[in-house]
């Protein structure tokens, strides 16, 4: 799949990532007790963001997953561990590709990206740490849908 983020264009195997997450989605989402709140709300979505700011917003959300979600999600189940590793290493690959756009000055961080990411972060930090990790991981299908709609 080719993701078009303003003038930053990258390719990724979105289908593979979606199928990997689908293997653990139900068990992860079952752990989420905060069903009335949402971290990745529709108004903050990537596809409803100015194209020029999409790359920057994506980079920040990817980093949120890498640095605070995958890193802190606790499981002793080897199968889940392997799926989380697969997702994390795939996200790392995407982040590396976006870094190339950043180097080529096609990953501008404007006001909209900062504003939307700020809201995502405040939603994340309103919850207890582990609850935020579980909810954000459970919302990965929302995030992947965002990516799907920019492709």
């Amino acid at each position, binding site marked *: 799949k080719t993701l078009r983020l303003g003038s930053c264009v990258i*390719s990724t*195997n979105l289908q*593979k990532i979606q199928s*990997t997450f689908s293997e653990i989605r139900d068990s992860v989402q079952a752990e989420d007790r905060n069903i009335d709140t949402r971290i990745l709300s529709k108004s903050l979505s990537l596809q409803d963001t100015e194209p020029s700011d999409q790359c920057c917003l994506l980079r920040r959300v990817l980093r949120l997953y*890498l*640095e605070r979600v*995958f*890193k802190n999600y606790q499981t002793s189940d*080897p199968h889940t*561990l*392997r799926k989380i*590793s*697969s997702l*994390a*290493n*795939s*996200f*790392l*690959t995407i982040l590396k590709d976006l870094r190339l756009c950043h180097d080529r000055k096609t990953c501008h961080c404007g006001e909209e990206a900062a504003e939307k990411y700020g809201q995502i972060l405040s939603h994340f930090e309103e919850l207890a740490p582990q609850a935020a990790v579980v909810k954000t991981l459970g919302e990965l299908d929302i995030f992947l849908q965002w990516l799907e709609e920019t492709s």
Partner: protein
Amino acid sequence: DGVAVLPAPQNLSVHSTNMKHILTWSPVVVPGQTIYYSVQYQGEYESLYLSHMWIPSHWDSPIAKPECDVTDDITATVWYNFRVSATLGSQTSAWSILEHPFNRNSTVLTPPKTEVTKDGSHMVIELEDLGPHLEFNVVYWRSEPDAEERSKLIKNGGISVHLQTMEPGAKYCAKAQTLVKAIERRSAFSRVECVEVEGEALPL
């Protein structure tokens, strides 16, 4: 807890061909005994963010042979580390770690085995099935001066694919190469194979 008296397995290395990755090591030998091995891995993400974490390989039941198919562990084009330990009863060796991390973009890509046949006046090709990661680019042409080459992307091997309808008295040729989108690489072409349709060439 078993005391580490067993020697750790040595000479770990990954042999990768057509996106199938096999981790091998030198066996630990104790006469008259069967040694079992455990394999764990770490992707680049883990080594950057969770360096203490090692993940049991898909092939995680104790292994009796000094090799392990780690293809399903390697799911991204990043660096992967592997480690192996040996077990004999309650004795467990230290971990031995792969000397150089492995990245799947270094896999050896071989041209696919092909079979070009004719079904009546139809040119058909069948390609070797090399697994889910690999696609094929088939180039085919009518064997004549200034022939125009055409190409076709074939998603899976192991099935017959129609290339074109042929005219009597003419010779048609094809060759194929392996493609891997995940690592953006392709193999060399296979050798050229041709078929010919008997009969008189049609008047121009």
